[in-house]
């Protein structure tokens, strides 16, 4: 289904650790949203000097209710644009485009699934966990961050998971270390078939490598800086190996943000590998 472009009104703003959760009216969005989809939001008004929309993973959707449907996003402040969004108050209007991107693929048959979230990368995993459980899948969650305050939603996600393992690099909560320090054991214990991950690129690369080493299928939702979010600007590209074995610079907004972990060339992200289709040969 095609994405919608609409004006949503802020229903609720709440703090969650170092993040801000916004609930927005968004009629029609819930019905179209699958776990892993994202939306983007325009900054400022008509004359805003910040032209580029900011992208957010869709955290929760409600298809009914007095507002005819709403959507929740988790905002981490990284600069002026995200600060502006975090500063919105009830009844403010926001320009929303979504749902966007390619969502997570769900297994047809019940499977053992590990969901790995880094920081507020847990946001899209809530809907995913619910839908996996509805399909009879086992869901185990690993949530990791540098410190406790950078974790998001750990209490809440516990409800949808058989087990929750928390890691922090400073040991302020859970196991001291990184998600990959516990992943290998949890793969063994749960006899995992699939790993779903969302978080910073370094974490995704590490998770995809562990999954590959253990022969487990993985899907990673990447975080690349985007301008348009709809596939026209070509800024959010990364090197991905196609089913035909050929590496291409692909758009994370429309061909992602969810990619198979074994198809992204993690160590080459930020570069154009020499064997990429159409890579510079010196003739360019």
């Amino acid at each position, binding site marked *: 289904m095609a994405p919608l472009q609409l004006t949503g009104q802020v229903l609720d703003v709440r703090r969650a650790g170092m993040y801000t959760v916004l609930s927005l009216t968004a009629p029609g969005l819930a019905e179209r949203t699958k776990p892993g989809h994202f939306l983007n939001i325009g900054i400022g008004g008509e004359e805003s*000097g910040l032209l580029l929309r900011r992208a957010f993973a869709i955290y929760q959707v409600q298809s009914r209710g007095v507002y005819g449907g709403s959507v929740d996003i988790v905002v981490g402040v990284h600069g002026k*644009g995200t600060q502006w969004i975090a500063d919105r108050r009830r009844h403010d209007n926001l320009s929303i*485009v979504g749902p966007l991107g390619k969502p997570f693929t769900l297994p047809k048959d019940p499977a053992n699934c590990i969901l790995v979230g880094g920081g507020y990368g847990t946001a899209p995993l809530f809907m995913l966990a619910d839908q996996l459980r509805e399909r009879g899948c086992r869901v185990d969650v690993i949530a990791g961050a540098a410190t406790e305050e950078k974790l998001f939603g750990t209490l809440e996600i516990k409800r949808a998971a058989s087990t929750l393992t928390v890691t922090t690099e400073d040991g302020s909560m859970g196991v001291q270390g990184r998600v990959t320090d516990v992943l290998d054991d949890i793969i063994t214990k749960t006899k995992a078939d699939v790993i779903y991950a969302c978080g910073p690129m370094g974490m995704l690369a590490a998770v995809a490598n562990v999954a590959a080493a253990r022969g487990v299928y993985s899907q990673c939702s990447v975080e690349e*800086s985007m*301008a348009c979010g709809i596939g026209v600007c*070509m*800024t959010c590209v990364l090197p991905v190996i196609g089913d035909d074995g050929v590496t291409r610079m692909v758009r994370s907004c429309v061909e992602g943000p969810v990619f198979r972990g074994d198809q992204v060339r993690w160590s080459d992200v930020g570069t*154009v590998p020499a064997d990429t289709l159409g890579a*510079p040969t010196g003739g*360019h």
Partner: protein
Amino acid sequence: MSRALITRGPAGSAVDLPAVDMSTSIGDFETPMPVFTASGCAAAGKELDQFFDITHIGGIVTKSVMMSARSGRATPRMAETPSGMLNSIGLQGPGIDAFIDHDLAWLRQRGARTVVSIAGGSVEEYGKLAAKLRNVEGISAIEVNISCPNVEDRGQVFACDPNSAAQVIQAVKRNSDTKVPIIAKLSPDVTNIVTIAQAVERAGADAVAVINTTLGMVIDLETMRPALAGITGGLSGPAIRPMAVRCVWQIHQALPNLPILGMGGIRNGEDALQFILAGASAVSVGTVTFHDPSAPMRVQDELEVALALRGFTTLHEAIGYAHRGPDVPEVAEEQE
């Protein structure tokens, strides 16, 4: 046209306005509507068609395509700037054959008016690209991008030298259908843009597209290195609008019969009207599409209202209207 426009007057009251004849032409390409996408800001139309009916605007100007598939540059390719952005994509694209087979075929089947933008690394490549497009159905015009700043050898930006610019246009002209107009896309990064416009007109260009991005740079204060992998990038968006309007004005003043496709930071209908009044026959909406994916359609609707509010019944009357002589005081009727 029997349509009427309804808009809001200054006091917020509804105002009925007569519809405006928005038809225009770029050389022999006649179009019922004057607002186009800008090359590199609309891919090949398919993505934007989800947000508005692309057959309702003037047309799609596709992303500049080269002979071979091209990966483009490394990332970061983009940096946000005040009222604009820098980009350094490096002409990523599928190559002309795949473009004709897939993108152009889709646009033709969709019924969209299409301006195909081509870019070459040499005069010869431009000629070959034009030859590839000869006898291909569904091309309203060819935009010759001689001004992309994101090529490896920036000293070779053809639009910065009148002789190189003319050679490219001659090569395209020689190899393309005589009935398909050729639009030369010019760079603002020149001492005198009129000199370049005159050179491409003499070489056979039927129109000019004005302007491409202007070269810019941002330093990332965290890394204390250039923010873009390509070091420099093309600046676009409302930040460059006054520069673009100036270029359109200068070219229209010097070459009043050369059609101009005006662009550079158009955000709304009133911005588009500035370009028309300065001398553009049609306009493109580019970077603002990243902010508002339905911008080309919205700008076109707003332009019609902006024209009607000023008493224009056709777009044509407004082209270059800002160049008219001093207004004559209306006192003549009292003389007998």
